[in-house]
């Protein structure tokens, strides 16, 4: 691991550094300049595959197989409502870039955008970010693969990784810390209001309880999928500063881990919120 001052980047920051507007990317770059190095973890990589690359792979398949934009729309309309809505918002990818573009041009452009993201996106991140491998998350270690049929993000469930998944050993190593987090979460009031225990944190609390009682069966619970925020917090434990675009869960996990929390708002014109370790109170997210 490199030496010097470090900041841990969560999934939201890594995704933003790839596909958010240049102004947001500049704000992130400016923040990172204050550190000797930036790092992240393999569970974060697994989340990126699930959240960004999987959608990109599906869209890539669509634009590669369909002959017309109409056909792309027809295929999307066949998806369940929630997924249809999600992918409809991505259709800027087949919008006209040049006024003389026909359907073939638009689909070809989309294919090139997506192939660049899928082939080089992770390398782009790795150039600026060191990945910690303590969690030994097998899903995160595997890269998106390209084969003659297209791209493949690999399995999404820890339960399908067998002995390659090192998460159970990672949890065992952090049993003491997990007990502390469980105790902290147990005292939080549940609710949707800022500062309360979100559904995700409640799920993390249940996950810890299950692990404490049945550690051998926890892999079947798909830890990276069901308790991502918690695992990412554990991955970041030795890094004093935690950088995210979502303070909702991190505000609590960083408190327990005695980290400084930096929250980047979506709007690049807004200043980042910094929550210092020593401060008695933090803004609520």
């Amino acid at each position, binding site marked *: 691991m490199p030496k010097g001052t470090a900041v841990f980047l969560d999934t939201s920051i890594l*995704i933003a550094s790839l596909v958010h507007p*240049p102004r947001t990317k500049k704000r992130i770059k400016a923040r990172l300049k204050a550190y000797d190095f930036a790092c992240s973890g393999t569970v974060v990589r697994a989340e990126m595959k699930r959240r960004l690359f999987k959608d990109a792979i599906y*869209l890539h398949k669509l634009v590669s197989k369909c002959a017309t934009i109409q056909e792309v729309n027809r295929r999307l309309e066949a998806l369940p409502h929630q997924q249809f809505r999600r992918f409809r918002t991505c259709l*800027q990818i087949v919008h006209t870039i040049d006024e003389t573009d026909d359907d073939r041009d638009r689909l070809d452009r989309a294919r090139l955008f997506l192939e660049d*993201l899928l082939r080089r996106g992770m390398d782009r991140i790795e150039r600026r970010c060191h990945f910690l491998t303590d969690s030994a998350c097998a899903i995160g270690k595997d890269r998106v693969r390209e084969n003659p049929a297209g791209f493949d993000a690999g399995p999404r469930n820890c339960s399908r990784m067998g002995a390659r998944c090192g998460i159970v050993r990672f949890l065992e190593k952090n049993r003491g810390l997990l007990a502390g987090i469980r105790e902290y979460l147990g005292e939080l009031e549940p609710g949707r209001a800022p500062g309360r225990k979100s559904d995700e944190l409640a799920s993390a609390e249940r996950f810890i309880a299950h692990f404490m009682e049945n550690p051998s069966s926890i892999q079947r619970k798909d830890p990276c999928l069901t308790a991502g925020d918690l695992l990412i917090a554990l991955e970041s434990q030795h890094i004093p500063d935690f950088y995210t675009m979502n303070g909702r869960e991190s505000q609590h996990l960083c408190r327990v881990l005695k980290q400084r929390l930096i929250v980047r708002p979506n709007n690049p014109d807004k200043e980042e919120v910094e929550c210092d370790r020593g401060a008695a109170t933090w803004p609520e997210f």
Partner: protein
Amino acid sequence: MEEAAEAKEPVDLGIAGMSLIESLREMWRLRSSQSDEWGTIVNYLQSSLADQVLENLTPGQCSNLRSVLEDHLVPSADTGSIESAIDLLEDSDFQPLKPLMDLGKNC
């Protein structure tokens, strides 16, 4: 373009910018005879200029466009050429990856 931008001649800048757009359109039509990397850079250049008011381009933006065209849009374009092209375009406030941004919003 750079000269027109430096001289603050919006009409000349607009004319030069439209010539560039026309040239890029021609290059895009040639993409099947070139590598995907080359096509990707043409695509990023066209995407960067898609919503631009050409008459308002700054000397810095024109200079970076020239660098991408001269140094990176070459028949031997590779991954490094793409990375440099994206950096140059984004450094001058173009949005080459704009069509991908909605994908990020869903995450």
